[in-house]
């Protein structure tokens, strides 16, 4: 190894970034060449000097300030349903930060199975209140079964006895958008497949126009407490989307492969990005009245 080569590798040598064979070669050269040995020693000395510098400790009140902010943020994140949270932050791709919280807002109507799970969780002390929601209070149920961690409705008091639909927000009426055909569903599905919609476990609500029945379905890997597939069977749906929750739906009975095929063959899938950024229609709630 020549002196020029040593100079080129000097810093990597001092920082321990060379391979063993290079280190051996360089060591051998330094034994013979005093000038290079001096260079290495000087670099080591500078490095030591920098490492010896006293470090400025963070002021104590900075730690407490940060803890306070983080706790406040965590409390807000715990209280708000996921869809509302994602909406408040203005981006659907940030919802992953909220992992661990109740992942879906409750539907206005509670099934018998949900009621049973809630009773059981309360008896075992696994139920945790997470704040108000449309139609009642939201309770998070911890446990090891499928759908655990989902939000369940602790009390039901719909204002007029009708189901309030899915995707409820914690305060006030939800802002909804209504889409009338399955085309937009496919677009959303394709978005989801392409990783554009990243939030798992959203609740979507369907309204079957033939029976005027509203049902909800949890999407994504964890389906939540009411995770059974929706019973929508009509050809034409009104799909209700709350807050910024994406519409993720497929035609009744269609398999994943069939949906994928639809997406691939549908030229509109290319415009999916535009479909997603389309401003939401306000006042879609009227469709339910």
């Amino acid at each position, binding site marked *: 190894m020549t002196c020029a080569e040593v100079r080129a590798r000097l810093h990597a040598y001092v920082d321990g970034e060379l391979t063993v064979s290079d280190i051996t070669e360089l060591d051998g050269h330094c034994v013979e060449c005093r000038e290079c040995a001096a260079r290495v020693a*000087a670099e080591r000395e500078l490095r030591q*000097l920098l490492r010896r510098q006293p470090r400025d400790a963070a002021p104590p009140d*900075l730690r407490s300030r*940060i803890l306070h902010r*983080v706790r406040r943020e965590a409390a807000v994140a715990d209280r708000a349903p996921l869809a509302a949270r994602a909406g408040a932050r203005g981006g659907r791709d940030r919802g992953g930060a909220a992992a661990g919280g109740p992942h879906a807002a409750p539907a206005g109507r509670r099934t018998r199975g949900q009621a049973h799970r809630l009773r059981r969780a309360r008896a075992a002390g696994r139920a945790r209140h997470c704040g108000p929601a449309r139609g009642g209070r939201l309770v998070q149920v911890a446990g090891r079964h499928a759908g655990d961690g989902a939000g369940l409705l602790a009390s039901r008091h719909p204002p007029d006895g009708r189901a309030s639909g899915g995707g409820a927000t914690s305060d006030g009426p939800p802002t909804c958008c209504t889409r009338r055909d399955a085309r937009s569903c496919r677009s959303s599905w394709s978005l989801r497949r392409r990783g554009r919609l990243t939030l798992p476990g959203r609740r979507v609500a369907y309204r079957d126009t033939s029976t005027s029945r509203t049902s909800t379905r949890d999407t994504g890997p964890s389906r939540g407490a009411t995770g059974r597939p929706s019973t929508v069977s009509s050809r034409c749906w009104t799909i209700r989307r709350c807050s910024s929750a994406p519409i993720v739906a497929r035609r009744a009975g269609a398999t994943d492969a069939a949906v994928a095929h639809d997406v691939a063959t549908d030229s509109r899938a290319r415009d999916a990005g535009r479909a997603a950024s389309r401003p939401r229609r306000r006042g879609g709630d009227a469709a339910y009245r």
Partner: protein
Amino acid sequence: MALVHLDALYHVALRLTRNRAEAEDVVQETCLRAFRSFHRFNPGTNCRAWLFTILRNVFLNRVRTRGWEVLEAEMEGLDQVETAADTHVGGSPEEQLLQTVLHGDVDRALAALPLAFREAVMLVDIEGLTYREVAEVIGCPIGTVMSRLSRGRALLRRALVRFAREHGYVKEAE
């Protein structure tokens, strides 16, 4: 988690911003961002490097909101020190110098470095990150890190020699 590294974050923020109040703001913002985007952290990788990446982005965003002048002023030094690494003077006077140099001098010398060199020197020499980690934090190839590091160290050495001369530790002739 970020609070475990709070001192390191604050130290780096202080070196970057050169202002205590600003450094505190940057660290606070960094911790909040880390909390919000913890799901993006890749377990098994260096957590400190990840936090430094966020910190650097927060710092640069703040600099940008105040106008590009600061950053440009910081980057100006890059051209002036192209040959700094070649003018290395390896010898015993320097070693003696480094024994006697004052802590304040090192701070001044570091603060005088252009941002690009300062962050490389700081992350490698003071925080002990590997070249690869620094490259990820800064977002540049490892070769660039190495060249910035060698130039930064050469500049630092030069500044220390200058300060030592001012203090009379090293005579002009040497």
